[in-house]
């Protein structure tokens, strides 16, 4: 398969996985807060694991441009949160019915997915097999993220079937960025270390500001730390065994 089509296929698969997100909510009257917390922790563990496997690749190349890229990635997310006035946005509020909350949640989720698209794209550019691994990891993590998003949307009166659709749509940015970053870095390999760093920094920062703070309140530190670290471990192990 042509590499670009390969990236497109895997990134689309990752985005489509988010359609599974609303499944745990089917037939539930109310969503337990601990479940939302664990969904966050699953996603956080997968993202930190992905940041780790990307940093292993980054360190085989130029470390300094990668570090600069990481600082830019962190600054980029900080800047987008600031510019969109979503710095302290709690993404898990099930009883906030303000109209602006709805669009803010969808916007932040879209930006979040876009960053993960960069991660898939740069991983694909380093090595297609490794890229497929990262895409599967992101696909897996898209499911709990979509569960949370659908719970929020459902509490606002959106039907679960539509919530599944919206969850997939927020992840379209992931497909787009994966394909663009892969093509650009393939055309200009000099950008690879910086792009790798960007993804690593942005993923880590997203975990710290969007996923972990709320999850601790929802499910308590012990279970959150367990779910996060075990998910990280599974990813590291899978990468170690495959690599």
């Amino acid at each position, binding site marked *: 398969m042509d590499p670009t089509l390969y990236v497109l296929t895997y990134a689309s698969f990752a985005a489509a996985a988010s359609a599974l997100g609303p499944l745990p909510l089917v037939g539930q009257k109310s969503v337990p807060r601990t479940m939302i917390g664990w969904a966050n922790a699953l996603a956080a563990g997968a993202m930190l694991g992905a940041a780790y496997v990307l940093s292993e690749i980054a360190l085989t190349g130029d470390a300094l441009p990668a*570090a600069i890229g990481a600082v830019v990635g962190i600054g980029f997310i*900080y800047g987008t949160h600031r510019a969109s006035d979503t710095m302290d946005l709690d993404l898990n509020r099930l009883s906030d019915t303000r109209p602006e909350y709805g669009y803010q949640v969808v916007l932040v989720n879209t930006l979040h997915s876009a960053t993960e698209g960069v991660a898939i794209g740069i991983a694909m550019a380093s090595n297609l097999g490794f890229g497929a691994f990262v895409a599967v990891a992101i696909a897996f993590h898209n499911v709990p993220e979509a569960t949370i998003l659908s719970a929020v949307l459902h509490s606002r009166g959106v039907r679960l079937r539509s919530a599944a659709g919206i969850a997939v749509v927020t992840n379209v940015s992931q497909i787009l960025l994966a394909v663009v970053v892969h093509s650009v870095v393939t055309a200009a390999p000099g950008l690879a270390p910086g792009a790798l760093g960007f993804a690593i920094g942005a993923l*880590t*920062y997203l975990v710290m500001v969007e996923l972990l703070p709320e999850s*601790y309140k929802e499910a308590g530190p*012990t279970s959150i730390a367990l779910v996060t*670290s*075990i998910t990280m471990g599974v990813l*590291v192990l899978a990468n170690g*065994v495959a690599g």
Partner: protein
Amino acid sequence: MNQLHPVVLVFLYGLVTALATGLGALPFLFVRTISPRVIAYANAIASGLMLGASFGLVSEGTRYGAWQTIVGANLGVVFILLTQRYLQRHDVEFGDAKDASARRMLLMIVVMTVHSFSEGVAVGASFGGGMTLAAVITIAIAVHNIPEGLAISAVMRPRGSSVAACAGWSIFSSLPQPVMAVPAFLFVEAVTPALPYGIGFAAGAMVFMVLVELLPEAFEAGQRQTVGLLVSLTVVGMVLFQTFL
């Protein structure tokens, strides 16, 4: 130095690396205000240092064996859980601190001390490869220990420990390095298979400590963007720092 027996030399080199850990307390000579916010941000920096250090450890461990590293990491997680439970069931006092604060400080010292065991083994085993590189390895490990002392001090100093106590406990946490380096040096072939388990254990314990104790407290008292910036920038700095050693 060349007249010394290699075993004494390995021990002395290990001791130098342990003493270097105490240097991590020095920046706290300049931090005078102690508020919940300072604790939060110091926690965030310690978290970044420990996450970054674990990244380095895991990447080293998986080179020996991915399965062994992960088994070790899970044991590290269980170890922290058990220690945490144990400390919760007992009234702990540490210096002037009590309960939650004292527990966190003790846990931090335990985590960092336990993690030094496997580092000591790594030092000793690498000396086994030949003494010519010993000085270089010693300097590298010594410099790498400074942020670990910084992480310990970042947890202890805002809770009222003196700078001297921070330095003392930092050095204490690294004492397993010289102690473990010697047997590891003498029995390289016997200890090498155990190395990935030990490295994984150290990494798992540190990651879990960050997730279960340091970050929740940081998010409680600090602004989430500031905590996020401090953690992620420190991770980047720590990973970069390790690659240049």
